[in-house]
Each structure stands twice: as structure tokens, then as C-alpha cells.
């Protein structure tokens, strides 16, 4: 096939030639974890779109939450001689041998969304992930700014107990409000990252805090719990977004609907676009040999009601969330 020949030629041409022209025909294999959440599905959709934008041939292998499937997929990508491999690792350990095989085949590996065990640091090119401590911090800083010095009692809906994302988002938020003595967390319970539990926990918070009168803001570790909490506030006769401020993390489409209706105030985005920066890093590496930093942190963008939530909703609703 002509395509294979070009690939072969580009491999043989070496450093003397600029391979920028070949970037248009880059082939990347992506071992995706599966589709365990809406965010994961959106990540796959966005990866395809980003690949198309850059004229990259993206091959996606769905591992269905199994590491052995991911290892198989990586071996098959190596056998096919792809230009780069993207890996969203389902677990942190056990990657050394397969990543060595990729290294021996001179195929750069980029980790997406999650990191692996430190022992394998030299085995991959870079990791593109979000910093969940930073996400919590952005949320906390927004609240401090919005409270503007007035006393503000916050109730917190935590993620699943023991989940690293929950621990980090809690810590980040606490860091964010650390400098403001007027903002303090008065209640904190787990809502297991789900709408139903978020609603149930918020119902109890409202009753325990004098019908919600002493609550100034809700902070939820994800948007789904906040969607449930918003319903609980409405059923209790409170006006979420006005009586009680809301800030949550993830930026799923439904929270933008609530923001457009004035029922939610802010959300911090966990971007599904991990592949975009990864493509750019690989292309720069292939073209000019630019070695990217070991960690590329994605932007944790804050959205408020001022950011035209309905337009964001329209752009996100078909991504597969």
C-alpha cells in the first residue's frame, strides 16, 4: 500500500529530512479504558475530532476496563508499526514490560488522563492529565472571590470515600479557601458521585442547617451530585444559584442547563480534550525532536453564568456525556 510505503520512507529518512510533511499521515494507536462514564465517552469523541482536525489516523481500542486488553492492544499497535501510542491506563502498575517493547520499537507512548507508577517514568514520552487538587483550588478561589469578605458557610458533597479524585478535590478546595477566614466548611458528607445520593445528602444538610438558611454555598466534587442537590434545594423552597451559591467540578452538559436557568453558579472543567495536547506533543517530537515535559497539565477552566452556558451546553451535549 502506498500509505505503508510513505511510513517506511519516513522511518528511513531519519533526522536529515524535515518530517513535518509526514505529520499529515501520522498514525496513532489509542488504548482507551472503556466507556465506564459519560466523561470517558466524551473523551473518545473529542479524541476522534482532534485527530481529524490534525489529519491523524487514530485507531482506538476499547479495553473494557481490563489491563490485559490494554497490553494486547499496545502489542498489536507495535506490530502494526504506528507512529505513537496513547494509553489511558486502567491501573497504575504492571506496564513496564509492554512499555519497554514500545521503547525498543522506538514508538513514543503518551499517557492520557491518568498517570502510572513512578518506576516507569523513562518509559513514556509524557503524561497529559488534569490536576484534581488544582480543580478544587479553582473552585475554592471562585467562592472566596464571590463571597467578597462576607461570612459564608459551605456544605460539601464529597465523592466516594477513598477515591483519589475525591481526596484531591477536597484538599484543593480547602487550600483555595485557606486564606479567607470568612469562608468555612460546616458540613461534609459523601454523595458517592451520584445524583441520587447528592440529593439525599443535600436534603439532610438543609434540615440540619435550619431549613438551609445558614447555608451560603454548596461545593460538590462533581456536577452530577450538584444536579441532585439543586433538586433538593428547589423542593425545599430554596432558590439554588440565588439563595445558595453552587460550585462543582467536571463541566458536564446538564450543569450548563442549570446555569442557563440561573440555578447553578459555577463549574470547573475537567476537559475531555486530553488527546489534543498529546497530538501536539507527539507531532513536535516527531518533527523537531522537541522533548515535552514529563507532565502536561490540562487547563482547569472555570465556567460561570457569564460564559453563555446555553452555548456551551449545545457544544457539549453530543459528545457522549
Amino acid at each position, binding site marked *: 500500500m502506498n500509505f505503508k510505503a510513505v511510513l517506511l520512507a519516513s522511518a528511513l529518512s531519519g533526522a536529515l529530512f524535515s518530517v513535518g510533511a509526514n505529520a499529515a499521515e501520522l498514525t496513532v494507536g489509542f488504548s482507551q479504558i472503556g*466507556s*465506564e*462514564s*459519560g466523561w470517558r*465517552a466524551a473523551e473518545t469523541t473529542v479524541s476522534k475530532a482532534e485527530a481529524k482536525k490534525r489529519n491523524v489516523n487514530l485507531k482506538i481500542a476499547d479495553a473494557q476496563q481490563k489491563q490485559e486488553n490494554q497490553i494486547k492492544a499496545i502489542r498489536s499497535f507495535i506490530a502494526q508499526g504506528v507512529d505513537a501510542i496513547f494509553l489511558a491506563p486502567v491501573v497504575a502498575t504492571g506496564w513496564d514490560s509492554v512499555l519497554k517493547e514500545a521503547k525498543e520499537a522506538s514508538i513514543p507512548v503518551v499517557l492520557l488522563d491518568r498517570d502510572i507508577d513512578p518506576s516507569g517514568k523513562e518509559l513514556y514520552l509524557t503524561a497529559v492529565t488534569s490536576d484534581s487538587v488544582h480543580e478544587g483550588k479553582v473552585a475554592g478561589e471562585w467562592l472566596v472571590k464571590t463571597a467578597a469578605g462576607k461570612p459564608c458557610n459551605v456544605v460539601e458533597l*464529597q465523592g466516594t*470515600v477513598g477515591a483519589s479524585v475525591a481526596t484531591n478535590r477536597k484538599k484543593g478546595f480547602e487550600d483555595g479557601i485557606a486564606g479567607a477566614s470568612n469562608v468555612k466548611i460546616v*458540613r*461534609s*458528607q*459523601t454523595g*458517592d458521585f*451520584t*445524583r*441520587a*445520593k447528592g*440529593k*439525599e*445528602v443535600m*436534603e*439532610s*444538610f438543609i*434540615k*440540619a442547617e*435550619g431549613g438551609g438558611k445558614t447555608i451560603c454555598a454548596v461545593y460538590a466534587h462533581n456536577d*452530577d451530585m450538584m*444536579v*441532585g442537590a439543586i*433538586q433538593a434545594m428547589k*423542593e*425545599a*423552597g430554596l432558590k439554588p444559584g440565588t439563595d445558595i451559591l453552587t460550585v462543582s467540578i467536571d463541566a458536564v452538559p*446538564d450543569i450548563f442547563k442549570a446555569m442557563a436557568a440561573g440555578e447553578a453558579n459555577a463549574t470547573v472543567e475537567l476537559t475531555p480534550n486530553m488527546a489534543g495536547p498529546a497530538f501536539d506533543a507527539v507531532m513536535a517530537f516527531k518533527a523537531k525532536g522537541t522533548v515535552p515535559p514529563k507532565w502536561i497539565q490540562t487547563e482547569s477552566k472555570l465556567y460561570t453564568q457569564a460564559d453563555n452556558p446555553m452555548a456551551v451546553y449545545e457544544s457539549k451535549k453530543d459528545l*457522549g*456525556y
Partner: protein
Amino acid sequence: MALRLPRIGTSQIVALVLILAANWLVSPQFFDIRLQDGRLFGSLIDVLNRGAPVALLSLGMVLVIAMRGIDLSVGAIMAICGAIAASLADSHSLPVVLGAALAAGLACGLWNGFLVAVLGIQPIVATLILMVAGRGIAQLITEGRIVTFNSPELAFLGGGSVLGLPTPVVLALSMLALTLIIVRGTALGLMIEATGGNPRASALAGIGTRLITVAVYMWSGLCAALAGIVAAADILGADANNAGLWLELDAILAVVIGGTSLFGGRFSIILAVVGALIIQAMNTGILLSGLPPETNLVVKAVVVLAVLLAQSPKLGGHAAGLGVLFSRKKA
């Protein structure tokens, strides 16, 4: 109609009262009830409202357990039926939506009953199949995302109220009454107890044990379907990954707390519902208490252990499933 009053039940009622009293101690406004938009509003109402899905599940589960069976699939059936209801809600009328979801629940129950009564597979294995596969089916229906809907009719089943009481509570009470009438108002209850106590002797005595077994699993499926509809209506969406997750265990626990033995035979429908309320009263109390979430499960374990120990024959209570186990180990 011979509605039998429960002969046992003192320990369950005492436990419920003690937990409610403890809730009052940690949160003095626990018994405050006011009207909010024509709907009763207060922590006590929350206990009833949040307890409704598990109470519904326990209505089916108690009969299954009385037949010496167990139904692990009810949580997954909730997810399937919630997914069906939410997917159809905005394009079809309420009777179609409910009909489809309830029919799916009955079909799931029929499948379980077929595996247990006709193929003779052990109940725990037979229903494990649907427990695992069912959540996958629900995810297929929702395509892995949370399917939301706007239909006010369906939303009414979760967030509405009838005479001030939240609709889920009214639904659970209606199902309780219906179950009591069907089971205790006829000889069916006696046949279930007989089959659970000794299936062979009951079959020889002329009881259609196979038919009753299938019917009981179908009833469990129907109750689970209703619980699934309530759960979806509550959050205005179907969350296939989380709807009804682990609720089969809460339902089994409610039945056991209610004094029904896992070895089949004698059962109490009302006390199973009281068991569900005990579990929910405890959950609500933990949320109100302000304890750190890391302690949630420990507190629950201690309370459940205390309730079950109070029923243990060795400690002067009545025989519960776990009570029997304990006494056998010690003997």
C-alpha cells in the same frame, strides 16, 4: 379477610423507636414537620421517602426469602426499569411508560423464576446472572449516559405528593396493602410458608410449588420495577451505573431485620417494611449527625449488629436469620 397481626415484632419496633430517638438527639429538629408547596417537609418525611425504594424491594424479597430463595437481581432490575421509563418518558404517555417498565420487571422476574423453579438452579446463582447482566442491559438502554427527561407526569411519581405525603411513600403503602391482601387475605401466604418450610412435603400435599415460586419471583420483579421507576423519577433521569446499586443487600437486610429466616418458612411483610425504615432512619441519622463520612459504614454495622443481636434467641429475642446462624455456631 384474615389479616394476621404479627406475633413477633417487639424488638424491631423498639429498635426503630431507639434509632428515631437517637436521631432526635443528634438533630433536635428531627421531628419538625411543615408544609412546603403542599408537601410535608421534614427529616421524618425524608426517612419515609428515601426508605420507599428499599421498602418496595423488601415487599418482593420477603416472599422470595420465605420460599427459601433469594433475589440478588432486584438492584439491576431497578436500573433496567428506570432506564426504560426515562427513555420513553418524553415520547410516550404515562400508561405506556409505566406499562413498559413494569412489564420489563415482570419479565425479569419470570426469567429468575424459570431458572429457579423449572431448571432447578440454586436461587443465589440464578439471580446472580441477572444481577451482573442486568446492569449491562440497563447501560445498553441508556448508552452509558444519564438519560434525563422532562415529563411532569413521570416526575410526579418521584417528587410529587398525594395529600401531603410524597408519592413514593404512597406507592409503597399501596403496594404494602396490595401484598398483604393477596398474600394474607388468601391461602397463598400459608402455601408460601409451607413451601419454604418443606418444599417436598408441600408438593406432595398438592401445593403447586413451581407455579408459586415463579409467581413470587415475578412479584419481586414487579416491586423492583416500581422502585426503579421511583428512583428515576426522583432524580429526573436514569443513571444505569448507580440506580439501585447494592440495594439488593439492603432489601435482604430489611427482611432479615424484620425477623424472616433465610431458611424460609414463617415471614412477616410488615416487619420487613419496618426493617427498611430502620435502615433508612439510620442512614438519615448519620447524614444529620455531621459525623465524618469515613465512619458511615462502621456506625451502620454496629447498629445492624445490635438490632440482630437483640433478636437472637440466646439473648431472649426472636429467631432471625442471622440469629439462627449465631445460635447454631455457638451450640
